[in-house]
């Protein structure tokens, strides 16, 4: 057992080189930086947006428009006595986002025909955060519309309730998941799930690919630096060597996962800051629907991740036996990357359960699918699917570790590459 730890220590020492740590550090710093910048930009968009208005009508109705706009978190600049072209030029110069032009004769049309209002949106970029600045204007327009409509109703049908005429339909949305239900709109649920679950697959993908690269790399450098032969002649069981490689690479992969998570948290909170997180009513509804991970759920998720990493590591250890130097690591681990990419994209875009039987079998045969499906399955309380996936991965781990230690125990570990070459 002591010798096993000696081997693990060496594996970790070999993998934690400055060449490996530096890119990791750079990525994390970049994440934190982007997160910080995005956060401050998002905060900026939460401030009142500067818009302009040119009223050429000068009536009560046109005043109503300006009034509604200013109530909607918009900083209003009023232009007067100039042409729309001049107003637009000034709006550009003053860095306004939107210019509303109310033409002369606006109110006169107010008797049945639609009124016309010109809106100039001055677009300076296409970013996600940039587009948010126009949202408050959209909300304001809807309010203008309904304010005008109320006026019109009051005038044409004084005895009716304008609110009913405006929207005669009252909806009450209920979302049902399994045996649970809650009064909340489905778009709110989907939004919540997608912010929650974009995170898990990315981390899963990064950790699985990184772990397999690491272990294949450790095999390859062992061959490239010609240390393998010496190691194999040492009085240590080959099973201990296999286990030490798995544990060493697993530990380093886990460490990087934690570092990534830390960086990503900054990044994500930066992006979502100011987007308005859920109200307490909404979070009550999510709780009712069971859409929140309990401690046991997190433990289960961790177990799934652990087995997915083990599968990746044991496959890569076998693949790594084919690598003869660090350069060939990318090549030999490429098939594994496909096995991770396929379920990553499929689970991102499709409902696996609605696929045809053949495709479904194909997806379920890929061990990593079960890792990507675990989080949604846990949220949907489909625990049996999670446990089947776990069992399947556990069986594969046993098989692959067995094959890996067979390769290590025979002289295949020394000769694999040669045979491989001849076959080509």
């Amino acid at each position: 057992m002591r010798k096993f730890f000696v081997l693990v220590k060496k594996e970790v020492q070999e993998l934690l080189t400055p060449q490996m740590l530096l890119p990791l550090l750079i990525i994390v710093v970049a994440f934190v930086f982007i997160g910080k910048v995005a956060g401050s930009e998002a905060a900026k968009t939460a401030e009142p947006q500067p818009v302009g208005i040119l009223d050429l009508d000068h009536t009560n109705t046109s005043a109503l428009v300006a009034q509604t706009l200013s109530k909607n978190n918009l900083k209003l600049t009023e232009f007067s006595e100039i042409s729309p072209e001049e107003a637009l030029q000034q709006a550009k110069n003053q860095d306004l986002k939107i210019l509303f032009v109310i033409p002369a004769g606006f109110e006169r049309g107010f008797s049945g025909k639609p009124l016309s209002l010109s809106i100039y949106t001055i677009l300076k970029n296409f970013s996600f955060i940039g587009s948010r600045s126009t949202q408050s204007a959209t909300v304001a327009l809807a309010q203008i519309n309904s304010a005008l409509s109320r006026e019109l109703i009051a005038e044409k049908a004084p005895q009716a309730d304008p609110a009913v005429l405006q929207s005669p339909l009252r909806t009450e949305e209920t979302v049902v998941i399994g045996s649970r239900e809650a009064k909340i709109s489905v778009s709110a649920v989907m939004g919540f799930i997608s912010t929650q679950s974009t995170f898990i697959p990315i981390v899963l993908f990064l950790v699985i690919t990184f772990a397999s690269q690491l272990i294949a790399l450790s095999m390859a450098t062992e061959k490239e630096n010609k240390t393998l032969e010496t190691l194999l002649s040492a009085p240590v069981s080959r099973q201990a060597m296999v286990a030490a490689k798995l544990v060493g690479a697993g530990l380093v992969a886990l460490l990087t996962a934690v570092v990534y998570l830390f960086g990503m948290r900054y990044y994500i909170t930066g992006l979502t800051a100011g987007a308005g997180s859920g109200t307490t009513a909404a979070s009550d509804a999510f709780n009712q629907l069971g859409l929140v991970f309990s401690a046991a759920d997190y433990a289960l998720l961790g177990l799934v991740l652990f087995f997915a990493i083990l599968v990746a590591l044991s496959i890569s250890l076998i693949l790594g036996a084919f690598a003869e130097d660090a350069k060939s690591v990318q090549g030999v681990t490429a098939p594994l990357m496909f096995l991770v990419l396929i379920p990553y994209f499929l689970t991102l875009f499709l409902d696996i359960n609605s696929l045809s039987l053949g495709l479904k079998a194909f997806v379920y045969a890929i061990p990593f699918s079960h890792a990507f499906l675990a989080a949604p399955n846990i949220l949907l309380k489909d625990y049996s699917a999670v446990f089947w996936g776990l069992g399947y991965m556990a069986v594969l781990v046993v098989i692959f570790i067995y094959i890996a230690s067979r390769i290590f125990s025979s002289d295949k570990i020394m000769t694999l590459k040669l045979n491989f070459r001849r076959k080509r």
Partner: protein
Amino acid sequence: MNAVEVNDLKKFFGKAPAVAGVDFYIAEREIFALIGPNGAGKSTTLRMLATILQPSEGRATIFGYDVQKESGQVRRLISYLPEEAGAYKTLTGRQYLSFMAELYADSLSQAKEYVAFASDITGLGPRLSDKIRTYSKGMTRKLLLARAVMTRPKLAILDEPTSGLDVINALEIRSIIRKLSREGMSVLLSSHNMLEIEFLSDRVGIIHQGRIYETGTAEALKAKYGARNLEEVFHKIVENS
């Protein structure tokens, strides 16, 4: 009991035999050298005895333990220095020695003892605290050699031990091997350096095309072939085959 007994040992890579049936023995405390042209099968034989490669046919025992069936016991008795060996470049010389020592030692104090002994042999002094990637070829070779003998194995299997070393260092290494052998270590080595072999070995085996053509003391072989030195013996055997 003999340190090594080899009976009709063969190794095939695909159809081609790298070792086509060799027989020899090494007595306890003896230094036995395999000499032969490039590709003769020296390293392959040594690897089989070091439990790195599995024999295709035949049998070899080390202090009575079968190299194939009892490789665990064999590994506890031997120490193997591969022909083209390297060390973990990210470790310092001392870290490498302690790593290897801890794999062999039964206790931490024994490991420390191994490291102290090896550090002495390397003659690297303060450079032992430097990363191995900064070492020259000869420095690395000396480190590896020290690593191989630090555990005072019952049998040392050394594939071209002094290759890449300068004259002074090679001389020093030879005398260390000699000394350890007198203290009870048996040695199987291969070499292309005839001077080294005449100085070091008690007996010599001449291997060619995967077969052993002659074994005996250097003196006996020279007498048999009417040669002035081992080089001539070697030449005559290879020419006549």
